[in-house]
């Protein structure tokens, strides 16, 4: 069990959350604007659809909940985004996210962490997005880190 401190401490089997929340119309539009996705179903409606890629930022919500000390001293580097979307999500919809550290492993001197995030409708537990996120928890190899 490595939750409770830095995200870089996370280990295989750790559970993150669940957290319940809504994504406001404001953040959906802001996210789409920041990524230059100016499509009408995001920007020109009172009830925007949520781009599935926003699930990635719910990882940060889970980190804040389960690892309140933050990221630790080194930068994470995102390696892979892998999402299966079951149903369209809308702004202001009650949501529940749960995370699980599926794997922590070493490869070429770097530590990788793979987290699975299960995003569901809070009202009836319907699955909305199943997401697998892979990061290198420290881009700088451990040997270089020790010598700097």
């Amino acid at each position: 069990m490595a939750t409770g401190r830095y995200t870089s401490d996370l280990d295989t089997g750790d559970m993150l959350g669940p957290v319940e929340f809504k994504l406001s119309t404001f953040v959906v539009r802001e996210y789409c604007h920041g990524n230059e996705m100016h499509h009408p179903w995001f920007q020109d409606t009172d009830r925007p659809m949520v781009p599935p890629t926003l699930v990635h930022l719910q990882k940060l919500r889970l980190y804040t909940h389960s690892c309140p000390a933050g990221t630790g001293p080194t930068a994470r580097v995102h390696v892979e985004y892998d999402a299966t979307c079951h149903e369209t999500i809308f702004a202001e919809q009650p949501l529940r996210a749960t995370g699980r550290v599926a794997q922590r492993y070493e490869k070429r001197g770097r530590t990788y962490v793979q987290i699975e995030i299960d995003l569901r409708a809070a009202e009836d537990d319907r699955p909305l997005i199943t997401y697998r996120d892979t990061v290198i928890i420290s881009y700088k190899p451990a040997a270089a880190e020790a010598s700097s």
Partner: protein
Amino acid sequence: MTTLQPGTELRAHPRRMTRERMRWYVDLLPTVEADDGRVHQDVPTIHDDDEFARSQGLPGIIADGMLSTNWLLSLLMDAFGEDALAPGSLRTRYIAPVFEDVVITAVARVTAVQTDPDGTARYALELWCEDAEGKKLTVGDASVRVTGSVAERARAPRFLVSA
């Protein structure tokens, strides 16, 4: 209904990965988490602070991979409309860093299409983002279920001209 055939390639207009585009994404992280109607700025990251990026072993700032993912999703939405959002899947793997001012083109290639009796088309696509020399920096794949006519949507003008 018109469908796109295997081998069809969709290419977005090239975009320069500017420092500003990188920062727009960085500032989304605290903004989405706070969700209080205001834009927030993040602490220095490898995506917007040269000194911090160098301290992490990088030659300079690099773009967050999700920018490439969202530019690919945007291309899929241009072609397939809101059907590109769900149900379906999207996977992207960041195989090389995207440095400042690299020109990126998002590309989707149809690898398979299956049409159901009700007219729904199921597409499998290979995805990538390439630089100006054609080097792939991000690779991936997607599946999209489409209920409308894709070709007409893809060819629809983004503006009207009237005399």
